[in-house]
């Protein structure tokens, strides 16, 4: 697969630039030219066996999509000895500013705390190469960033040679200081101007060999950790943009409903603190001195609403639509088989920081601040909406309070721009939690049908038909695929299908294997949630794997081991089985489960222990869901090369918490055209009382010189292992997720007014 990286002119030699500037600026192209073997031969109209994911996976596809871009990324050395870099990606908690700083520290031999990584504004010249998705960041930036940093180091060495009067080859670099053999030394800061150039030129440089790494591959703490624990880390709503006052929108009681008429705009405009009120495309916008006064104003508005895009729909009606859209598997074959259908209800990808954005739109220009994973498309669409030329719109990418797929979209940025233009004033727009949950994007409801046939010890066929409410992938990602689809061996089957095919790998030797996606109903606000199709599709597959193992009288671990294709896969599976003492005796109603998943050039396995005893399931939790408790998780992951094992562990920890919630507790309930959930005590994401008391994450030794994807891949095996464990503990394989969906565990809040009143009893406990 695109094997060479950066502008490679030798195994470790790469091309970059020094850029004309007052202090040293080294740059490299954010591209990865393909090697001769990189372009697969298209096969029209069909998905060929063997596995197309072996030919090209999603990571390759996104990386290949970056080829025509010409944008440079720059490492700058300053006179205070610091090094700065503006990363054209979004930091949403996944730790990429830290791993990026590590790459620079490694190649330059500068201390990590002297590297400052910020987030770049939207840079349209980067075309497709400013999207943070599919766990692609480290993979696609690994070599270019190192190349730029290595060039900076090279130039500093040359400047030091002049200053110290010694050949560059005689000099050593340690911790941002260059020394000669006699012990004379000069720090980077003193060389920043001397190493600069007034003529941009191309330079070639050799990158460090992996065996010489002292930063990459070592566990490091987050570079923004101190800011996070002191409250100094600034998120969008923490920014002090002059006159950008608190703004909220009164939204419809049903999904995407719009305003028919508003009865009392003038009255609401006169409420304390309120400065502006107006009907906008998504509801009625209010701007006030404080968000508290926005809440009051939103609650006071009397609006009549037009129907939305999912009017009258419910879980049951969508399930009927999905069943009707399922691609047929044909009559049951005359051989032994397992045939199951799994249902996955809508889930919310709300982050803790709700949708929010600041917009300052003037007659001739606009400035936007928001946590954006696809800022170029956001900028383009905002410019169109405002009727401004692209060059008059500035889009700043801010640190996000989580993403989980949410920030691939720019709903709040677009809405804030519209409102600011309408009011003629800067606005700081926040979605209420209730809005975020009810009108925000969701992971689409879907069903997965699996039929596997077997004879003796052989699995003859494995066929999966995944049928889903349409996933909106129209965040610029689509363009990449459109541009590339023709070159892929998937013909014209469309973007979602392509994405599905590329992200789903069949890791088992299961004879003829096919999997198809069919989508229906575009009436919902959807988006990919962390790990997109994989958690549901993998959960269904792994449960069927357990069934097959049972039919063949094999142990679930041994069965997987026997059928997995490659050694890296077997290694992670063996690791969790060994460390987690697979097969140990467990009390009744408790059990272990094991699952495997491969994606983004990475492999992972999870071993889970679950407690489904009645006294555990029925334990008392105020305004929460108890249910079965996952008591232990052992997780092994091999991402090829782990740049920051400590950060990777953190990502897997989050993935595990997601997986537990997806199987056991978290879903949205659709009733009469709206979702019932409006609070974190309605939508049951994993809480402390659901957290596994025992957790062990094992980062496997490196198996590659290239980092694979990491941010998402742990969700699928975690969800699947919890489901398998639940099935083994209760003796009944779960087929509907989350398992508690049929019980509504809360009292739904009203939809009119759309946001609940803030309580007033908060002080009681304090005195």
């Amino acid at each position, binding site marked *: 697969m695109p094997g060479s990286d950066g502008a490679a002119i030798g195994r470790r030699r790469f091309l970059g630039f020094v850029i004309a500037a007052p202090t040293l600026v080294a740059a490299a192209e954010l591209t990865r030219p393909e090697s001769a073997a990189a372009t697969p031969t298209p096969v029209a109209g069909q998905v060929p066996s063997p596995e197309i994911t072996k030919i090209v996976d999603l990571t390759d596809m996104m990386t290949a999509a970056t080829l025509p871009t010409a944008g440079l990324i720059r490492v700058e050395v300053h006179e205070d000895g610091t090094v700065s870099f503006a990363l054209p990606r979004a930091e*949403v*908690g996944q730790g990429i500013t830290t791993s990026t700083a590590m790459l620079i520290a490694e190649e330059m031999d500068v201390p990590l705390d002297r590297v400052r990584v910020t987030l770049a504004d939207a840079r349209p010249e980067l075309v497709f190469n400013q999207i943070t998705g599919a766990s692609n960041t480290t993979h696609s930036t690994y070599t270019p960033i190192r190349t730029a940093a290595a060039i900076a180091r090279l130039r500093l060495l040359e400047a030091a040679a002049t200053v110290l009067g010694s050949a560059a080859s005689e000099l050593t670099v340690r911790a941002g200081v260059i020394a000669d053999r006699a012990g004379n030394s000069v720090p980077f800061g003193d060389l920043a101007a001397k190493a600069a150039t007034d003529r941009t030129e191309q330079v070639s440089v050799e990158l460090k060999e992996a065996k010489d790494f002292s930063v990459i591959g070592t566990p490091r*703490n*987050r570079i923004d*950790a101190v*800011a*996070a*624990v*002191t*409250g*100094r*880390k*600034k998120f969008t*709503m*923490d920014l*002090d943009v002059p006159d950008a006052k*608190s703004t909220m929108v009164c939204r419809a009681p049903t999904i995407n409903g719009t305003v028919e008429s508003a009865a009392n705009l003038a009255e609401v405009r006169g409420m304390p*603190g309120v400065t502006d009120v107006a009907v906008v495309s998504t509801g009625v916008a209010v701007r006030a*001195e*404080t*968000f*508290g*006064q926005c*809440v009051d104003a939103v609650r006071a508005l009397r609006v009549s609403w037009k129907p939305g895009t999912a009017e009258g729909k419910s879980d049951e009606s969508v399930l009927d639509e999905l069943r009707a859209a399922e691609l047929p598997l044909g009559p049951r074959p005359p051989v032994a088989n397992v045939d199951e259908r799994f249902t996955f209800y809508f889930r919310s990808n*709300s*982050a*803790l*920081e709700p949708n929010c954005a600041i917009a300052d739109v003037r007659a001739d220009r606009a400035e936007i601040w928001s946590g954006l994973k696809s800022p170029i498309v956001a900028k383009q669409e905002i410019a169109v909406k405002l009727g401004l030329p692209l060059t008059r719109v500035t889009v700043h990418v801010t*640190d996000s*309070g*989580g*993403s*989980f797929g949410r920030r691939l979209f720019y709903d709040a940025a677009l809405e804030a721009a519209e409102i600011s233009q309408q009011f003629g004033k800067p606005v700081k727009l926040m979605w209420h*939690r209730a809005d975020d949950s009810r009108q925000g994007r969701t992971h689409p409801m879907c069903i997965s049908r699996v039929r596997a046939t077997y004879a003796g010890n052989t699995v003859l066929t494995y066929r999966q038909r995944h049928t889903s409410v349409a996933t909106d992938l129209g965040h610029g990602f689509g363009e990449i695929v459109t541009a590339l689809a023709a070159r892929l061996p998937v013909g014209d089957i469309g973007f979602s299908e392509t994405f599905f095919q590329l992200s789903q790998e069949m890791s088992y030797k299961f004879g003829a294997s096919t999997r198809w996606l069919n989508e229906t109903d575009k009436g919902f606000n959807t988006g990919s949630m962390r790990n997109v199709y994989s958690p549901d599709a993998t959960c269904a597959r792994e449960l069927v794997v357990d069934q097959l193992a049972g039919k063949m009288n094999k142990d679930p671990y041994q069965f997987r081991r026997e059928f997995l294709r490659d050694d890296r896969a077997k290694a992670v599976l063996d690791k969790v089985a060994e460390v987690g003492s697979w097969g140990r005796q467990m009390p009744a109603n408790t059990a272990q489960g094991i699952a495997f998943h491969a994606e983004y050039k990475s492999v992972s396995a999870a071993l889970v222990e679950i407690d489904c005893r009645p006294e555990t399931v029925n334990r008392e939790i105020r305004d929460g869901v108890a249910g079965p408790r996952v008591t232990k998780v052992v997780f092994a992951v091999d991402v090829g090369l782990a740049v920051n094992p400590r950060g990777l562990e*953190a990502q897997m*920890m*989050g*993935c595990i*918490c*997601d997986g537990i919630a997806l199987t056991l507790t978290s879903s949205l309930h659709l009733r009469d055209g709206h979702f019932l959930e409006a*609070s*974190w005590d309605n939508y049951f*994401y*994993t*809480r*402390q*009382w659901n*957290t*596994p*008391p025992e957790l062990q994450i094992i980062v496997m030794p490196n198996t590659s010189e290239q980092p694979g994807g990491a941010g998402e891949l742990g969700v699928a095996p975690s969800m699947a292992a919890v489901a398998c464990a639940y099935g083994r503990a209760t003796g009944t394989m779960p087929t509907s997720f989350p398992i508690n969906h049929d019980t509504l565990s809360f009292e739904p809040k009203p939809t009119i007014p759309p*946001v*609940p009143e803030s*309580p*007033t*009893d*908060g*002080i009681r*406990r*304090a*005195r």
Partner: protein
Amino acid sequence: MPKHTFRVNGEQVTVDVADDVRLLWVLRDLLGITGPKYGCGINVCKACTSHLNGNAVNPCAIPVNDLEPTDEVTTIEGLAATVDQDLHPMQRAWLEQDVAQCGYCQPGQIMAAVALVREVTAHGRELTEADLDGIRNICRCGTYPRIREAIKSGAKEM
């Protein structure tokens, strides 16, 4: 408009705002103290957790009118100063465990943790797993296991 006087992070403040505006918005929108975060506005997510006279409270549920001039509000920004250090021991424990991912919930988590340890200590007992299970603060990034580790080690230093 009514004036309200109270103390925040060691300083006397006076704000001019309607009685029923919740403290969270007085802190964030009027005083520019942005450590306490909004995650729900209905005393559920606990992202805004701060201390009032040393106890954990949720300012999204406190009308500013409830505050007396002697009331001391401590937000994450003022936590370290309560022990006269650059960082509170709980913040140091947080750094050691590298807890934060996106960081959005973390001010609230730390303030809740400090109050929990104080409460347990006041009752003269040790922190239990049940105490940790009882923490309601949401972390949508799923840092819960590291939070538990950090609280256990932070408690020893408090």
